């Protein structure tokens, strides 16, 4: 059956806006190179070899998994952004390619020294081959589906790639140099957004990887200093809705939503469903994309029945009043048993059609 992208878009936009007239709980599968290569039977170099192949592969994988959200994994200022920095700063040798997973850079090589940060050149993404393939592929996808897509931004995700563990020492020993790096990455993020917008011609959602918002890594004050303040500036400059993603174990979702306006949050921790029930009460206008379905838990080591039970738990607790999307977090890894992956969309079909009865009704 052909995927109805108009229905998916309608579903997703209505959920994000809080509309009660939604037919079904939407499904957001975080699909990166691992699933794209697995489902399409190609390797990463082939995947990136042309915008046409990339767009077609993304569409095939997304439709195969019945996801309601369509986006490309490289429209994300994580490793691919670090690779753009590596290229423009003549450190391309630190880029590592893998057959069936995203490219990565060796953490901490690009900005090994403080001088590296001072001299760091900001990439012009219109001149990057991979970024251009990405922009072109996004344009193809938009032309085919009219689906608005996400652009993934994130300051700390790039800081970690460029500066590595040294960034955490800088936080205490030399915060100024760290802020200089954050400013340069900020400028680069704007360049990514502008290029995507110029090429595709529509407003995306910002899928913001807020990795600093994690208690295992830093205090909330530091998270605001090195990430939060930049999100506020980006929001002012870009003016589109932001979704906060954090796949860490102890994210600051509540604290972040008190300080910054987000349309949605995407994460799987804490794994206690009661946290998410309370979150919904506290932030009724913030859509939850995810809750406690984690790709390293039931989806990896459980059975399809375990996955179904988990999806059901999320739907019956969080979906009845809307503003909820099922989303296992984080990216679906290459090694997940396929029956477990497919159990997510089957469970949505089974339990996610509105009206959904509230517990206790």
């Amino acid at each position: 059956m052909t995927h109805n992208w108009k229905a998916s878009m309608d579903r997703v936009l209505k959920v994000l806006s809080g509309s009660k007239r939604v037919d079904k709980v939407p499904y957001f599968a975080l699909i990166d190179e691992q699933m794209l290569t697995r489902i399409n039977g190609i390797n990463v170099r082939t995947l990136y070899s042309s915008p046409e192949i990339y767009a077609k592969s993304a569409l095939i994988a997304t439709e195969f998994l019945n996801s309601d959200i369509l986006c490309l994994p490289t429209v994300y200022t994580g490793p691919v952004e670090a690779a753009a920095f590596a290229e423009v700063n003549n450190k391309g040798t630190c880029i590592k390619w893998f057959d069936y997973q995203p490219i990565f850079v060796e953490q901490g090589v690009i900005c090994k020294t403080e001088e590296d940060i001072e001299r760091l050149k900001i990439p012009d993404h219109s001149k990057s081959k991979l970024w251009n393939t990405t922009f072109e592929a996004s344009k193809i996808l938009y032309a085919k589906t009219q689906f608005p897509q996400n652009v993934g931004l994130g300051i700390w995700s790039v800081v970690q790639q460029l500066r590595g563990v040294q960034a955490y020492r800088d936080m205490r020993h030399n915060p100024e140099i760290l802020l200089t790096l954050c400013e340069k990455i900020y400028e680069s993020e704007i360049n990514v957004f502008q290029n995507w917008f110029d090429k595709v011609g529509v407003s995306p959602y910002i899928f913001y990887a807020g990795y600093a918002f994690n208690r295992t890594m830093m205090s909330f004050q530091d998270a605001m200093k090195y990430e939060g303040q930049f999100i506020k500036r980006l929001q002012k400059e870009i003016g589109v809705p932001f979704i906060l993603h954090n796949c860490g174990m102890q994210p600051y979702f509540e604290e972040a939503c008190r300080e910054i306006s987000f349309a949605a949050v995407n994460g799987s921790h804490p794994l206690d469903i009661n946290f998410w029930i309370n979150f919904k009460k506290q932030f009724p206008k913030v859509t939850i994309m995810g809750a406690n379905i984690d790709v390293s838990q039931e989806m990896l080591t459980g059975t399809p029945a375990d996955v179904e039970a988990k999806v059901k738990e999320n739907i019956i607790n969080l979906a009845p009043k809307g503003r909820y999307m099922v989303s296992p977090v984080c990216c679906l890894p290459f090694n997940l048993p396929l029956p477990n992956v497919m159990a997510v969309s089957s469970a949505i079909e089974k339990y996610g059609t509105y009206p959904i009865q509230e517990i206790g009704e």
Partner: protein
Amino acid sequence: MSEEEILIKIKDSIVKGEEEQAIDYTKEAIKLAIDVKTILNKGIIEATQIVGKFFENGEYFLPDLLISADAMVGVMDILRPKLLSDVTQKTNATIIIGSVEGDVHSIGKSLMCSLLEGQGFHVIDLGTDVPPARFIEEAKKVLPAIIGLSGLLTLSINKMRETVYLLREEGVTSKIIVGGGILTKEAVALIGADDYATDGWEGLKKIKQLLERGR
């Protein structure tokens, strides 16, 4: 400065992550002929307990843990040659550590290395994206007490499983601990490791427990 005062200064400097001060006070303590075992116990070990408590209480975070560990490493570098054999036997077990093949994330692994070195362990860091064969080669060469496999990606769970399997097939009997925020009890059962940790501090505690059990 009295012996007690200087030991407090060493401890406080480590807790605050003031590496240079910690080194200066340690040198001064040695000049005053304070017993190295006393410096180790009253300086490093007490500081470790305080830092750990702060981390567990949410007063300290990764940056604080890291700079404290750096200060400990600085102090240990001075103490190590002077430590008596009975102490070194307890503290300088060899640990080889690396991020498994396909995973180039290094932040968690680097923190772990610093924490271990600060406690006097002899750490061999194999780097990132380390194939199983490299772990086997190094393990056969140095016969480590512990092998640490690090990974951030869920995909790394399979590679950890493969690495543990191959290490055991090759007759490596070292204790194996896996580390990463993605790990669960169920995943570790699948991997077949002796233990796991989801953060550096937990990793340090678990490694010490593994060594105690293995004694």
